């Protein structure tokens, strides 16, 4: 589904990723681990074509995503749901509107929106807070809202960049279980983290990065650094 072919990314003189080649297939749950600055976030930015690689190519299925036109890029991003450590919610929209916006963006009609949004709100247990604004939510609730927004459009892939970075252990647990549930329903998930217990709890494929290079890629991985 996603293929990195000898990808290198440099910011001026700093090499963030060096000669990375990985393949991620449909339905996988991949944890990307490494210390801060190892290149985890750069990797996710490259998948979203937020950044273009200095060398090498990134493929989604059989298309080079850095050669997409603006319109095709928009369509491509619609296949991916993104969850960030800092949530990145729309601050002047309510919980309900944040989720509805993602559906409006991909031109779903009003019926679908009013049917699907409550369903997803229930899944992430935010039904009672649907009229709240993001600043009225706790960290865990914000992250569950971000996940709800990511999955509402039924994407092929979900990228979660340090989704538990700002959360306490209980909320971390909830978020990881939620992601596992989503993966069980067939959605590919790429999760970056430096949290040992998260990785050990998932018990799926683990790619370990160090100084921009892949130093380990285990099928039934554990956190080893």
């Amino acid at each position, binding site marked *: 589904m996603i293929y990195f072919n000898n990808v290198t990314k440099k910011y001026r003189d700093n090499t963030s990723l060096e000669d990375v080649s990985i393949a991620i297939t449909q339905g996988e749950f991949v944890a990307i681990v490494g210390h801060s600055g190892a290149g985890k976030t750069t990797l996710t930015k490259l998948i*979203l074509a*937020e950044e273009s690689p200095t060398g090498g190519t990134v493929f989604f299925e059989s298309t080079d995503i850095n050669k997409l036109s*603006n*319109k095709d890029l*928009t*369509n491509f*991003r*619609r296949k991916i749901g*993104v969850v960030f450590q800092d949530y*990145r*919610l*729309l*601050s*002047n*929209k309510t919980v309900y*509107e944040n989720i509805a*916006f*993602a559906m*409006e*963006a*991909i*031109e779903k*009609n*009003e019926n679908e929106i009013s049917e699907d949004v409550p369903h997803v709100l229930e899944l992430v247990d935010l039904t009672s807070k649907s009229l709240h604004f993001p600043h009225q939510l706790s960290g865990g609730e914000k992250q569950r809202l971000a996940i709800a*927004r990511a999955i509402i*459009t039924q994407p092929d892939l979900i990228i979660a960049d340090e989704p538990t970075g700002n959360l306490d252990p209980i909320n971390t647990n909830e978020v990881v279980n939620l992601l596992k549930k989503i993966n069980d329903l067939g959605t590919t998930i790429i999760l970056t983290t430096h949290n040992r217990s998260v990785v050990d709890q998932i018990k799926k494929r683990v790619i370990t990065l160090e100084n921009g290079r892949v130093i380990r890629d285990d099928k039934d991985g554990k956190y080893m650094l």
Partner: protein
Amino acid sequence: MFTIKLKRIIISGYRNFTRSGFTSLASILIMTITLFVITSLIFIQAGLNSSLNDIKEKVDVTVYFVSNADEASIKNIENSLKNLPEVRDITYTSQDQALIDFKERHSNDYLTLQALDELDDNPLGASLNIKAKDPSQYESISKYFESDTTLSKGAMTIIDKIDYHQNKIVIDRLTSIINGAKKLGFAISLVLVLISIFITFSTIRLIIYMSREEINVMKLVGAGGRYIRGPFIVSGVLVGVISSLVTIILFIPVSIWLGNQMTDFIGINLYTYYKANFFQLFIIMLGSGVIIGGISSIFAIHRYLKK
């Protein structure tokens, strides 16, 4: 789908506007100041024009006739003058009327009146007072007397004097002052309007700059350029509409005050002027507000949608 999209954009723009509270208030304030400047400049232009018209009104040229000129030939000259395109108005003052006016003017001056009584005949001549459409045209009118052949040959002999040459320096200077004031007024207005438009544009840009993270999030969620841009433009237009309403209301007490206090100084009652041109002024304010708000938003958001 188009109407649904439009509806969503308008609702979303309206919500952005109402929920941004202080930020919306700030942009309304700045926009109101801009519209206030524009409207003030229209007022100043109106005042300036009326003062200039007052001054123009005071400039004229008088043709004095010799005292034994007969009325028929004077009327003849008057008629031929009326056909000139430069001439706006002509008033004929007869010999008798000139005498009455003279006596009135010198009613405190017994010596002069006594001297006048000593004379058998009326020493004063009839005159034609000519007003041109524009001060710069007096020269050509006075030249008309010197050169034009349509006047009968005898006409030149009955003209005593034309006071244009005495007034020439004053008229010339006035003409250049009027033209200068008009040009300067226009230049200053243009600069002020441009500055205030620039300030409004910068404010709206700043507000959109604050939303750049949100714009990024919208892009990541898969929203297209138009769908992201739309609500910002709606907000910008709303700022324009509300600001024009605020300005139009604000100018009611302002023009009443100016009308009470400054009518003598400016030459026209600005409240009356405001009432007479209310609809036109409102359209100008509304148009400026909507255009400045909308276009600023389009330009400001453009750079965040490029990638």
